[in-house]
């Protein structure tokens, strides 16, 4: 029997997890507020990308509408907070309302199957923006609406808002990531994998592709709602621009570049979403779209599994070289 590699043993893994958690918890105390803000934003969009991964990476249905659920979650949060509702209730609503919206959309979209889902989901942000402008009583119209509810309490240090917000994002994002990891590794995840692989086989095994696609879409929408809540935690302001279509494309690109169907890929995707536009803007703002399109195409060409698959690819290349070199000599 092969001995498991060092990094595969249980205790090393637990130790590594504890170490990563410690670093994540302690990090903000040594960084400046702007960096903490950026880290918190990465958390927000990592959750959004994770939601997209549930529907796209694991179920194989292209969705161009994920940003709509983030926007909806953000608007629900802003409205609830401004009405003075309990924050826990606001959170629940910010998850449930996008979930219901996702369910209704999925009922129609999942009937189509295949690429038509992508064609329907494109409508969500495109209808969402004028709708958000129109429903000004709830959304503040084109001006948008702000909600401040995440200032640090006195016992924590009232000048430490950035760290407080970072911790809220970290805590909620960690819970969502653990839940989704368990979900996709369990029975539900296996069913999704079969549906993704071959719908006809899935139905013959008694797994209804339609039902699983609707469920995956609903879960993705709920996770989108969570990311919308977190967006309000960090940004504290939302407007129709939040759910504009080009953000949805960026989210899709981030997911693919990070790695579709991968938990780590969602984190990398979140980092890509937040950090890369800053870099490309600095090079030349008119070039941003060109650079991002080029990056997406290059990654699809050379690394179809996304950045998350890089270690695997490197290892395979190394192994190939290892087996080849003796014969070449």
């Amino acid at each position, binding site marked *: 029997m092969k001995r498991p590699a060092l990094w595969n043993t249980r205790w090393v893994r637990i130790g590594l997890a504890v170490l990563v958690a410690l670093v994540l918890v302690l990090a903000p105390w040594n960084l400046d507020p702007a960096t903490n803000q950026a880290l918190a934003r990465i958390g927000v969009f990592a959750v959004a990308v994770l939601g997209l991964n549930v529907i*796209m990476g694991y179920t*194989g*249905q*292209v969705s*161009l509408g994920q940003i709509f659920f983030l926007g909806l979650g953000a608007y629900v949060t802003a409205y609830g907070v401004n009405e003075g509702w309990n924050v826990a209730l606001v959170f629940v609503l910010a998850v449930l309302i996008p979930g219901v919206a996702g369910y209704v959309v999925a009922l*129609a979209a999942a*009937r*189509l199957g*295949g*690429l*038509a889902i*992508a*064609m*329907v989901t*494109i*409508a969500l942000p*495109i*209808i969402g923006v*004028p*709708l958000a*402008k*129109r429903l000004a009583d709830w959304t503040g119209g084109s001006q948008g609406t702000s909600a401040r509810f995440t200032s640090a309490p006195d016992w924590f240090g009232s000048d430490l808002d950035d760290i407080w917000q970072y911790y809220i994002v970290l805590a909620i994002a960690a819970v969502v990531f653990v839940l989704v990891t368990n979900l996709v590794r369990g029975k539900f995840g296996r069913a999704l994998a079969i549906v993704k692989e*071959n*719908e*006809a*086989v899935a139905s*013959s095994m008694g797994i209804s592709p339609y039902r699983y696609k609707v469920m995956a879409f609903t879960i993705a929408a709920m996770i989108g709602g969570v990311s919308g809540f977190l967006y309000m935690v960090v940004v504290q302001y939302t407007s129709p621009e939040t759910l504009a*279509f080009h953000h949805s*494309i960026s989210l*899709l*690109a981030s997911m*693919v570049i990070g790695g579709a169907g991968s938990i780590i890929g969602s984190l990398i995707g979140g980092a890509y979403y937040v950090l890369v536009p800053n870099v490309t803007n600095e090079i030349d703002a*008119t*070039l*941003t*779209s*060109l*650079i*991002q*399109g*080029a990056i*997406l*195409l290059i990654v*699809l*060409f050379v690394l*179809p599994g996304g950045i998350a698959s890089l270690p695997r690819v490197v290892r395979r290349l190394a192994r190939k070289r290892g087996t080849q070199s003796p014969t070449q000599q």
Partner: protein
Amino acid sequence: MGTFIQLVVDGLAMGSIYAALALAIVIVNQSTGMINFAQGGMAVLSAYLAYAFLGMGMPLILAILIAVAISFALGAAIERLLMRRFEGGDPDTAVVVTVGLLTLITGICGWIWSYNNLQFPSLFPGDSFTLLGAAISWRSLGTFVVIAAIMVLLQVLFQKTKVGLALRAVADNPRSSSFSGLPVGRLLMVGWGLAAALGAVAGALVAPRLSLTPGMLDGALVYALAAVILGGATSPIGVVVAAWLIGVLENLAAVYVPFIGHDLKIAVPFILLFIVLLVRPQGLFGRKTVVRV
């Protein structure tokens, strides 16, 4: 009554633009089985090319024709150099590639020609004539006629010619097609080229109306996609009729349904879609496909 006819006519003209893009999407879908989200972006690039030729002092019709020809070559090149790697693989990856292509092309247009609105002259005179109490512009009529003619040509191409038959065979089963001696690669390039050329026509027709910007056809693409689903993706006539239906209905809804208005009329095709899907999942004109294990 005059207003009503007016709205219908304008709706048909706008629907014709959606129809041109939808037809381009159908051609690619018919020959490769994928949906090209970059279709609108490619059409915008063609319109910019025509604009550049105009700037060199060419007459409008010649500038458009050259842009259409270049678009054909460009479409074929994109298929050969970019899409071929992803054809036959996971269709979702291919869709993401076209989304990346859309971002890239939009970026290129914005980089070369800036994101500002540019004025593009119309192929048809700007004035109008009166029919049954409605003022019908030559522009609307011209757009409508051009698209109707292309639709008929395509229907003939797909149903009556050997190339059309070959294209359909390739879409249906590329392996069997290549076994029976069809040049699959070349046919795919022709399919993409045809689609790009058709998109170029749409770009040239719509640019005077919307004024030229890199994101000019994003909205039209959404309507076109709705038309493709409604029409059933397999029938050129189906998607054109669906596009006209969408154009007319959204125009009527914008005026007669107070809540919808002009800003929310883009929701109309999707409300329509939602209703149709619940009743007829294969689209208005599509055929039901049966999947066997």
